């Protein structure tokens, strides 16, 4: 009987493991997890030529999804580099090279799978030199998440990859970087940090990057701070805040990350010259200077406060001393009177 029970238990356990344990576990908790690569593609192409590029979509979630892709133009917000998407697509020479997947039509991507989309850019010979900016917007609809199947608030996702297409006969970078605005104080306290916000504008014909750096020189002529700009893209006719950079090694790869422009010394004093040099890759170096005066404002306030406290203290002592002197006289008088 015991043997029979053991066999039954073993059978149940193995059947259970076979049926459920070996299968991929589908969604006790439904995670939507979608990846896209690359996040940005920049194609520089001559009129009359064609080029191919790919975008990969990866379903890392624990259920199948329907994906729908479409292109829309984007513009700059003149500040952050986050695209502002429109509803239209003005570039008509880009096509999806796939017999099974079409733009604006849902297609299935099973959990754990990746779909590579191949796009062709084919320009006619008479194309004019111009730049196009658009985004591939992919709607992600969880298959178990049909709005009509259930009550409650359903959640879906969109993931966006950006494209810049530069139509150019020469591939020459015709970007022209201009200083749009420079925000830094004229005076600051000796104990605070020198900070600056730099906005650049691209007056050229194509997307380019800001190269250059910012140096801070003290009254003795010593460079106390120097940092290269992080070379981020600026669209033609648009602006963007630029930042300093820092090299970081992650997973054995060297890359740069954004750093705010900020210098904090122990005690700043006197004039500090902020020297900005900047240019696009095909442009002569430009220069801008701004002087910040560091004054020991908090130190002076501290000294004044200490002096006031000292004065109050000494006056108080003086008053108490006079009071002590006066009291015995009154007491004597009282005694005499009594």
């Amino acid at each position, binding site marked *: 009987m015991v043997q029979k029970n053991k066999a039954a238990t073993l059978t149940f356990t193995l059947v259970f493991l076979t049926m459920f344990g070996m299968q991929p576990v589908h969604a006790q908790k439904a995670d939507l997890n979608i990846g896209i690569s690359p996040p940005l593609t920049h194609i520089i192409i001559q009129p009359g030529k064609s080029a191919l590029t790919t975008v*990969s979509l990866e379903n890392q979630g624990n259920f199948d999804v329907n994906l729908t892709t479409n292109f829309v133009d984007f513009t700059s917000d003149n500040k952050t580099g986050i695209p502002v998407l429109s509803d239209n697509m003005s570039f008509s020479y880009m096509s999806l090279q796939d017999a099974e997947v079409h733009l604006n039509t849902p297609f299935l991507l099973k959990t754990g799978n990746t779909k590579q989309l191949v796009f062709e850019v084919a320009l006619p010979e008479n194309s004019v030199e111009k730049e196009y900016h658009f985004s591939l917007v992919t709607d992600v609809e969880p298959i178990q998440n049909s709005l009509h199947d259930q*009550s409650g608030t359903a959640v879906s996702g969109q993931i966006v990859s950006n494209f810049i297409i530069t139509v150019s006969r020469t591939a020459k970078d015709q970007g022209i970087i201009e200083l749009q605005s420079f925000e830094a104080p004229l005076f600051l306290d000796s104990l605070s940090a020198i900070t600056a916000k730099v906005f650049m504008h691209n007056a050229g014909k194509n997307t380019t990057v800001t190269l250059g750096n910012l140096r801070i020189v003290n009254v003795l002529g010593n460079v106390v701070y120097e940092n290269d700009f992080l070379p981020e893209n600026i669209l033609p006719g648009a602006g963007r805040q630029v930042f300093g950079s820092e090299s970081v090694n992650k997973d054995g790869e060297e*890359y740069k990350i954004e750093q705010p422009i900020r210098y904090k010394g122990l005690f700043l004093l006197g004039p500090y010259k902020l020297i900005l040099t900047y240019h696009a890759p095909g442009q002569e170096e430009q220069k801008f200077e701004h002087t910040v005066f560091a004054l020991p404002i908090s130190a002076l306030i501290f000294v004044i406060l200490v002096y006031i406290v000292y004065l109050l203290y000494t006056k108080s002592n003086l008053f108490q001393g006079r009071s002590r002197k006066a009291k015995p006289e009154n007491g004597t008088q009282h005694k005499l009177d009594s």
Partner: protein
Amino acid sequence: MNKFSTVKKLVIATLSVGCLFSNYATSLAERMTSSQYVIEFGNFNVTSGEKTSANYKVTDTVGQISPGEYDGSGYVVKAGFQYIYPFRTLSLKISKITIDLSELTYGSFNTDTHTLIVDTNGAGGYAVKASENHPLRLLNTSTDIRDTLCDSGSCDESTAGSWTNANNYGFGFNLSGNDVATDFASTNYFRQFADVSNAETMKTVMSGTGVSVNRNATVTYKASPQATQAAGNYETLVTYQLIATY
């Protein structure tokens, strides 16, 4: 009895191993096809290096291309952030895709939460924007639970406001965690979702610069009905959009 049991165990074990192999047979190497292209690769890092077929060759260049140079083909394809970091996968994870606010009662709040996780893996900055198809709506009707106006009537889809009084009925959301918009000053600060049916555009709820790995924010959905709210199931569709900087 013992002999029978041993045979039974062997049969079960054989069947189990068979099932095990039959399951593994479905997870073979990636092979993507269409009628025009076949692209094979040994891993998912498909956009690094070179992709070829009989018909084309795509090279993702990594590193700076000298200005004014074509490589003879008449085009240059730069994938990712050439000057900063080789391209990586941008990914958005949403921990739960159905929000259940349960049975709503006038004068009290109901809430539900989930998390948003963003990885840009070394790409530039990013933004997560959010919208709703329409306010919470009674199925197949035009009866809505309005979007919250918060306690002082000041919050909207762009600016959060304090919302602690459940008599101020409505539907809204709060974000807390990494890179969340600064107007979510505390967990009592709520916003409306941008209402697409009312021509409102998606609004940024999270954003970051530089390397963003495992940036994690909790979204709290909150609703309270008005006293005369019609009974039934109220629904909407909330969409989160992850967009990288260019």
